[in-house]
């Protein structure tokens, strides 16, 4: 079996990396803006980011000259799936309500 270079345990054992995950849970950030929250050198920030990436906690996307870090939802109960599900759920329910109300007022006439 191939061992990943950094497992989840190692990735979250470090308080800075846990803080990074918490920051990224609010919004995706570039490595630079992520680094602003820490009193450490840019290479040190990059190293932490690499470890989080290797452990599957985040994805990194290059946009222009910036590297954007985003939490990977896979490990985190699929937040976006919940939102997407209930978003569609409400639209379909509200359409049903619309039909009901329209039918009701038509019957009255």
């Amino acid at each position: 079996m191939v061992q990943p270079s950094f497992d989840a345990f190692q990735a979250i054992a470090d308080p800075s990396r846990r803080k990074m995950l918490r920051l990224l849970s609010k919004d995706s950030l570039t490595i630079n803006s992520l680094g602003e929250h820490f009193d450490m050198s840019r290479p040190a920030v990059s190293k932490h980011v690499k470890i989080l990436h290797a452990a599957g906690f985040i994805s990194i996307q290059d946009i222009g000259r910036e590297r954007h870090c985003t939490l990977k939802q896979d490990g985190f109960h699929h937040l976006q799936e919940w939102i997407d599900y209930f978003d569609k759920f409400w639209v379909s329910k509200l359409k049903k309500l619309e039909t009901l109300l329209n039918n009701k007022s038509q019957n009255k006439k």
Partner: protein
Amino acid sequence: MTKSIHHQFFFPHPPEMVWEYLTNAELMAQWLMKNDFQPIVGHEFQFRTNPIPSLDIDGIMYCTVLEIIPFKKLSYSWKAGPGGGKITLDTVVVWELQSKEKGTDLLLEHSGFLEIENLSLYNGMTDGWLKNVNKIAERLNAKYGTTII
């Protein structure tokens, strides 16, 4: 990233009529889900639907009425989980009705998804810790034998 759901619907009907469909259990069942809602603040009720395997929830929404301003505003908590009393979704639904010249604007906000994300983050970490502590214990055992513990 979206953390809450917003919808606005216009109905060419008076707020009183729309309100009925938001607060009368029988009428609610016609478009939303079966429920035992009562328009009383603090009332605990449930919506029941089929299980939703993709979200790992058993189809029961556990709700508590949080606020009622007749014909204007209604809110309830909206919780769900895989069953056995475990809650993985802890959110709030707010309905607002605005009287318009020719009908009613109905505003829906379904929020609180961020907290769940944090909770899941925490849960994921806790599970991760446990799994990995076990893994380390195994490695130690393999190396030094099981006599340490």
